[in-house]
């Protein structure tokens, strides 16, 4: 027996319509929206455990609504709203997986030294470049003091040039009477100024790295040149040892930081030129993330160097003590960066 055909009229009232779909799901979207706003404004701690459990459920419900709406609805306002809500939800639900405190702890204990360790080759190269710069200018100025004026800006040197007397040079190192008269009032201002200035130079030397690392190398070489020229002037007057101490106390930290910022720049430069098996973009972004970590460290190191330069150097006037402090700082940084730790294995 063939059953009688169902009357065609029944199909006329469709069970599914986009308006009905919206009416049924809208409550979820509104709840999700409210939850996200709360999360954005007050953080995950403000949510009750009930709300936390609701979050992924509402998120998935919204994504599923988006899929259905895309396939069935032509309501632009609805589609736009669902898309925006899903994007917002995705980044909040998947965005933060760690508390700020944990992130900070991991950075200091592990990420920072690991990033520095991973650029060791670049650090060596930059250190050699700085040394090379220093040697170049040292040998040139030692053989002919006139060279000095090619290397060091008249304003920057503040009278510390080959024409100066040994006594004057001595005072610039913080020995003798003139230094004592100057007092300590301007110290912290000076230290802060040095810190901000050095940080900007380091940031620049890092940022220039992507031009295949060439400007970075040049900048670091130039830093070495200034150093070597000064060194030559002081040692010609028999003040080499004292100048060394004057430089060493903060120089180990500051030059280390300078070398690291150059290394970070160089890492990016080499990644762009020699991406290896990865795509060039991917190589650049991986190098950039490592370099970013190194750079946060560099700014912190420069802050320490600024303190040493501004306070330490003016308060510690004994040359041997200066050497000792500088060595101690260097050993501290080396130990912090290069001693392997347990997290490396995992």
């Amino acid at each position, binding site marked *: 027996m063939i059953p009688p055909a169902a009357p065609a009229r029944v199909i006329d009232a469709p069970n599914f319509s986009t*308006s009905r779909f919206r009416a049924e799901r809208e409550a979820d979207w509104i709840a999700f929206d409210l939850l996200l706003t709360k999360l954005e404004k007050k953080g995950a701690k403000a949510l009750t455990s009930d709300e936390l459990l609701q979050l992924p459920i509402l998120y998935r419900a919204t994504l599923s609504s988006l899929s259905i709406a895309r396939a069935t609805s*032509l309501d632009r306002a609805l589609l736009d709203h669902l898309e925006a809500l899903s994007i917002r939800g995705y980044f909040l639900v998947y965005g933060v997986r760690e508390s700020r405190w944990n992130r900070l702890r991991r950075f200091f204990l592990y990420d920072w030294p690991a990033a520095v360790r991973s650029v060791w080759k670049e650090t060596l190269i930059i250190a050699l470049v700085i040394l090379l710069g220093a040697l170049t200018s040292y040998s040139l100025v030692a053989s002919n003091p006139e060279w000095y004026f090619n290397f060091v800006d008249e304003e920057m040197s503040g009278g510390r040039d080959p024409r100066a007397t040994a006594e004057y040079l001595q005072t610039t190192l913080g020995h003798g009477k003139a230094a004592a008269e100057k007092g300590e009032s301007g110290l912290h201002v000076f230290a802060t100024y040095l810190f901000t200035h050095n940080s900007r130079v380091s940031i620049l030397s890092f940022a220039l790295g992507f031009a295949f690392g060439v400007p970075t190398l040049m900048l670091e070489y130039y830093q070495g040149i200034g150093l070597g020229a000064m060194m030559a002037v002081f040692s010609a007057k028999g003040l080499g040892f004292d100048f060394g101490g004057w430089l060493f106390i903060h120089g180990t930290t500051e030059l280390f930081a300078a070398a690291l910022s150059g290394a970070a720049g160089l890492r990016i430069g080499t990644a762009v030129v020699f991406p290896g098996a990865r795509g060039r973009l991917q190589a650049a972004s991986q190098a*950039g*993330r490592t370099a970013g970590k190194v750079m946060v460290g560099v700014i912190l190191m420069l802050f320490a160097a600024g303190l040493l330069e501004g306070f330490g150097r003016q308060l510690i006037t004994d040359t041997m003590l200066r050497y000792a402090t500088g060595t101690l700082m260097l050993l501290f940084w080396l130990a912090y960066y290069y001693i392997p730790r347990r997290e490396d294995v995992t």
Partner: protein
Amino acid sequence: MTAAANAKHRAASAKKIRQFVTPEGVDLELKIASAGLRFGALLVDLLLILLALFLFSLFMLWVGLASQSDVTVVVWLLGAFVLRTFWFIGFELGSRAATPGKRLMGIRVVARDGGRLTADAVVARNLIRELEIFLPLMMLGAGAAEDMVSGWIMLAGILWSLTLSLFLLFNRDRMRMGDLIAGTWVVMAQRVKLDADIGVDAAGGAMTFTEAELAVYGIFELQELERVLRGRDPRAMREVADAIRAKIGRPVAEEDDVFLLSYYRQLKARLERKLLFGKRREDKYASD
């Protein structure tokens, strides 16, 4: 608009959409933010930084005069440095990954690989900014300060530094140098309010249109009509209503909004029914 122009418009907006599949398997279809929006956001941020710096300076000046101590100079120097270096980093590390300027423009930073946005990426992309903004300025300053640099060399320097700063104009993902190195994108992230459903068939049956009258338009026209209806501008509604009446050959007999609303609802119902059966008619030029 012709069929070709329509297709071109669609292709252009499709070019800005990037596939971004969540672990649940839904493609979020992120849209790359335009260079204009990025520039606007930057301007707003720079203005806010300047304003903050100005207020901070005034405050420190006041404190300094009152206390007669040069500690205020230290605080001022450090504060200015922190403000300048960490304004962008600090805001982009927040849960909305956007500075106030970016929030205003409705854009945000995301990691290109779909993972979470890490702190090192944010730091890297923003330290490069230092270079992008200040290198052209420095070139200008250096050129002006030293007479031995000839005008042409200065120009070359500025052009070179500008190619770095304007790098985002030269790639289709609108990536700055910093985005490139940090592996990030800047995408649209406006909030869209859920407008009332104008498709409910409460009073939609005021007029009925025949199949032939509804067959003249496609999805593009439907959504333009939706925009006009939501805009509630009587002059625009009058124009659109007249255009539709002329097209389907109906006399002016009803109020514009009643006519448009009924037409919209029935057209939408018709096109959505077709959509369910796998037929997506993009615009009026596509075959029905």
